[in-house]
């Protein structure tokens, strides 16, 4: 079953690539706008051989990773504090609901003015966008804490810190992981966007340059790279999630038996 699915998937991918080759060759779309797959592949190899490409990739990944780490730490700390301190949740609810839907790209002009094309302007956007993903998940996760477990911990005289460590954190961890996984995808989108629009060094800026200089195959090749990067991040985040929660599932399994 699994093997068959993999074969079908590979066939789908091959058909997709073949379609990309055939459509421009048959003249259905102008080749200048949509180069055939082989031309894109060629441009892709040229990029891989170019050291400037690797430094751009490094810049993008730096912005992504730093932003994600900052946003995750801030989101987790803020989420735990908000849910542990009495009344803080009620008072912050409206503000969070208001700030969360503000599109982070609204901050682009501000980032440009404050930091120009530095890494910091990328970070501003990435952190703002990913912070909410983590925070909301932490808040949901803490809400899920079993009241009996919490009361038990209280009656055994566990302090606030010990309760966070032994009751709240294990319950919230699966939610936190989901939050970080969502944030990882959002962080990549915002990192590339910031580079594309602001011109901070990275893959996005390279795409913008390729576009203005009419290097269409290179532009497509770079877009494919960002897609592969996104795919890699998704798969990686899922793996980390499964690893980090392996104990959790097993613990849950034992309790259920």
């Amino acid at each position, binding site marked *: 079953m699994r093997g068959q699915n993999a074969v079908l998937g590979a066939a789908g991918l091959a058909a997709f690539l073949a379609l990309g080759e055939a459509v421009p060759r048959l003249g259905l779309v102008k080749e200048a706008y949509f180069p055939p797959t082989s031309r894109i592949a060629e441009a892709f190899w040229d990029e891989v051989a170019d050291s400037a490409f690797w430094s751009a990739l490094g810049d993008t990944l730096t912005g992504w990773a730093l932003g994600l780490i900052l946003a995750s730490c801030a989101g987790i700390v803020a989420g735990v504090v908000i849910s542990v301190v009495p009344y803080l949740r009620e008072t912050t609810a409206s503000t969070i609901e208001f700030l969360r839907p503000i599109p982070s790209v609204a901050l682009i002009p*501000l980032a440009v*003015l404050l930091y120009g094309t530095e890494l910091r302007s990328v970070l501003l956007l990435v952190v703002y966008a990913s912070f909410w993903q983590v925070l909301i998940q932490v808040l949901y996760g803490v809400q899920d804490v079993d009241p009996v477990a919490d009361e038990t911990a209280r009656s055994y005289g566990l302090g606030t810190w010990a309760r966070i460590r032994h009751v709240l954190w294990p319950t919230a961890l699966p939610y936190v992981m989901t939050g970080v996984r969502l944030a990882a995808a959002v962080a990549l989108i915002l990192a590339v966007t910031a580079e594309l629009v602001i011109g901070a060094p990275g893959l996005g800026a390279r795409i913008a340059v390729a576009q203005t200089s009419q290097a269409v195959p290179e532009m497509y090749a770079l877009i494919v790279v960002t897609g592969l990067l996104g*795919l890699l991040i998704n798969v990686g985040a899922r793996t980390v999630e499964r690893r980090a929660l392996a104990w959790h599932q097993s613990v849950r399994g034992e309790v259920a038996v």
Partner: protein
Amino acid sequence: MRLLFLRIAFVFALPAVLVAVWWVASDGSTDVYWPPLRTILETFPDVWTGDRLKDDVPPSVLRLTGGYALAAVVGVALGTVIGSYRRVRAVCEPVLEFLRAVPPPVLVPVIMLFAGIGDTMKVTVIASGCVWPILLNTVEGVRAVDPVMAETARSYGVTGVARLRHVVLPSASPQIFAGLRQALSIGIILMVISEMFAASNGLGFTIVQFQRSFAIPDMWTGILVLGLLGFLLSVVFQLVERRVLGWYHGLRASTRRSS
């Protein structure tokens, strides 16, 4: 009565404090980039009344609605087809996963090649970015239709459109709405970005224009307007969701109570 008062206090206390802090902290600000809140609020009515409100807000909102609606229709339709057939799903999955992983804003330059810089480009950009979360969530939702319910419907002879309307779509709708919600924030991002790239009107265009001409308080008002728009859209979305999924939330609440 007291309870209601308390609740209102909880809702408005922190925002009031934050605005007050911003007001006081920025009051004597001489930093060009952080103008006093007073100045921003004074500029606000000058900028966002009359022509600008008429020329820039409706085009942006229309583009967003158009692209979003297109993505919703295409996403749900394709997702239902792909989700209903196991083989089709297996063939499409890797390609869809890849297409979803491409950060949507990089599509702006590509679509500019095809569609120029007019409204078609913006609507296409928004639609092509929004369609993935809707499509993939629909696939998941359609796949997860309760097998007992599906079998029952089949044995009662409910097939075709009726089956789609009464069995498949309702049971997939919570998932579909999760996708629609993700798509909404992507849509706003793409609306702003496509206007920042090439446009002669719209919110994104205006804000970048302010920034380039160093009209800093005006730029701040633009950021506020975008924030308000994002907030407003998410409120509207919540209202619609609550109406459409009312039965589902009720069901969940009652099962939670009985368990």
